């Protein structure tokens, strides 16, 4: 026996600090980039509420809330993706796999077709309907699948999710078909997803829920690790599997629903960010969840910066960029990892 061999202790804190620095750097640099160039000194001299300072207005009223919403959306979708992949033991799972986003889409499209243009508590009806749609989808899928012992058999859950997706998509298509041109444009625009319509109020009202959800998922991180290696062996290691599944599925679905109801479905982030994060830090969800959160936030902010500048002054929906940028980047990472 070679006694010189020892186990490596992984530096969790160091990893977190590195990804936190990446996030901070993204947060500092991206507000300065945009279709209109701004004078930083002038913008900062005015402060957030300077009325007649154009630079400050662009920085604080236009770019910053949008960037913060991007951070929240990227964080929530990436964490939800990592958790769905672990719970379903399937690395193709994503926050939208179980029908959350198509439910949200149905709600939003319904509000658009019914011309509900009022706001309640600062939220437009489209967002509220969309969140109700997401909740409805979650409730429908999980109540269909739940067994007597309160467990969620993953194969049936996946099937129910796919079915729900098709069902809601058909309803969306139907509503789209009977809508007029104005509505049709709004529907298409919503379905593409984006961070363009936002203010601090929206960001502040969804942030606590998103952070609470992510915190709860980190709390059950070790239980999720064990479930991702198999539900039976997890039980034999002392994990309360039905309880962890309930917490995991419902929390991940809720933070997805909250974000999607504001931004529309932004694809690819929730699928790919956990994979990229896994290449750097491994599969341990205690570290993968916070890293996915920080990396997902940075990734979506960067994609959105590209989206609003690449053919400025026209802005592209960010979902197009996440897939066009994220796809090749992921393939490159995979290839590099293989060669190493």
């Amino acid at each position: 026996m070679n006694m010189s061999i020892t186990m490596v202790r992984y530096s969790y804190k160091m990893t977190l600090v590195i990804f936190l620095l990446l996030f901070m750097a993204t947060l500092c640099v991206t507000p300065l980039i945009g279709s209109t160039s701004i004078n930083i000194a002038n913008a900062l001299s005015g402060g957030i509420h300077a009325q007649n300072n154009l630079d400050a207005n662009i920085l604080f009223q236009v770019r910053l809330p949008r960037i913060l919403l991007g951070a929240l959306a990227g964080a929530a979708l990436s964490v939800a993706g990592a958790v769905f992949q672990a719970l379903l033991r399937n690395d193709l799972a994503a926050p939208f796999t179980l029908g959350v986003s198509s439910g949200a889409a149905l709600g939003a499209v319904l509000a658009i077709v019914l011309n509900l243009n009022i706001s309640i508590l600062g939220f437009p009806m489209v967002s509220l309907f969309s969140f109700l749609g997401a909740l409805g989808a979650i409730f429908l899928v999980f109540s269909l699948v739940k067994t007597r012992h309160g467990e969620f058999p993953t194969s049936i859950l996946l099937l129910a999710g796919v079915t729900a997706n098709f069902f809601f998509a058909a309803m969306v298509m139907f509503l789209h078909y009977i809508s007029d041109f104005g509505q049709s444009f709004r529907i298409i625009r919503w379905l593409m997803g984006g961070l363009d319509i936002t203010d601090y109020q929206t960001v502040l009202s969804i942030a606590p829920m998103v952070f609470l959800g992510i915190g709860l998922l980190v709390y059950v991180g070790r239980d999720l690790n064990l479930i991702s290696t198999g539900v039976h062996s997890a039980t034999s290691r002392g994990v309360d599997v039905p309880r962890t599944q309930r917490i995991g599925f419902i929390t991940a679905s809720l933070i997805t629903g909250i974000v999607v109801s504001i931004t529309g479905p932004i694809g690819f982030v929730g699928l790919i960010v956990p994979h990229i994060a896994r290449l750097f830090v491994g599969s341990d969800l205690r570290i993968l969840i916070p890293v996915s959160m920080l990396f997902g936030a940075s990734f979506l902010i960067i994609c959105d910066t590209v989206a609003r500048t690449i053919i400025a002054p026209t802005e592209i929906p960010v979902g197009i960029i996440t897939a066009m940028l994220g796809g090749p980047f992921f393939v490159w990472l995979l290839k590099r990892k293989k060669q190493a």
Partner: protein
Amino acid sequence: MRPHLEVENLDFAYDSEPILKNISLSIEKGDFIGLIGPNGSGKSTLLKLMGGILNCPDNAIRINEHPINAINKKKLARAITWVPQEHPMVFPYTIQEIVLMGRHPYLPPLSFEGEEDYTIARKAMETTQTLQFSDRYFNEISGGEKQRVMLASAITQEPEVMLLDEPTSALDLKYQVQILNILNQLNEEKNITLILAMHDLNLASRYCRRLILLNDGAIVCDGTPEEVLKKEIIENVYGVNVSLHNLDGDILVHPITNHS
């Protein structure tokens, strides 16, 4: 002496299909038990019930006189562990991470493994000869190595009872013997109670001190290998003609085929 693990009048059914019928067992601390019987006889189900993986009827299974269905999951995991036959792994966990997962029932939420947990895991990996590849990924190693890693993870759990579902079925002869030798060592040195579901009657008779033969969800025979491995019993349960041989005190079961 009070029994360590006790099964009393256990009936179990999936939906309405009865799997186990009126099973009663009394297991002493430090027993080394082979659970044998044809496919579908209920071996795996019995192990899962004893491990708390399937919900058992009230009070039907007790460890140290406590009904296992009433024990908190983490507390139960400190007493009993279960090792499945196969270990499909979707995500790239390292061997070290897999072994350390055995510490789960001892750790509070939000915590990472400490120095003591690493020491326990390191010892388990020395026992199972897996320390030399501790930083490799689980999916990259061979079947025999995987089984040893899962064994190391189970040892790291520091259980009183280990339940193993066909731990050697998928392995070649060398690894079969290696796994059983490690189990034997655990049984002798740490007095861990072992219950193994097994298909290989010869290995079962070679290593186990007690065999329990299940057929169609009921116990046919329970005793030493000499008492259980009898020509008429085996032929009756398995429906195959066999000849029995005694080699240095071990019983060898040999099927009689037409061409021999």
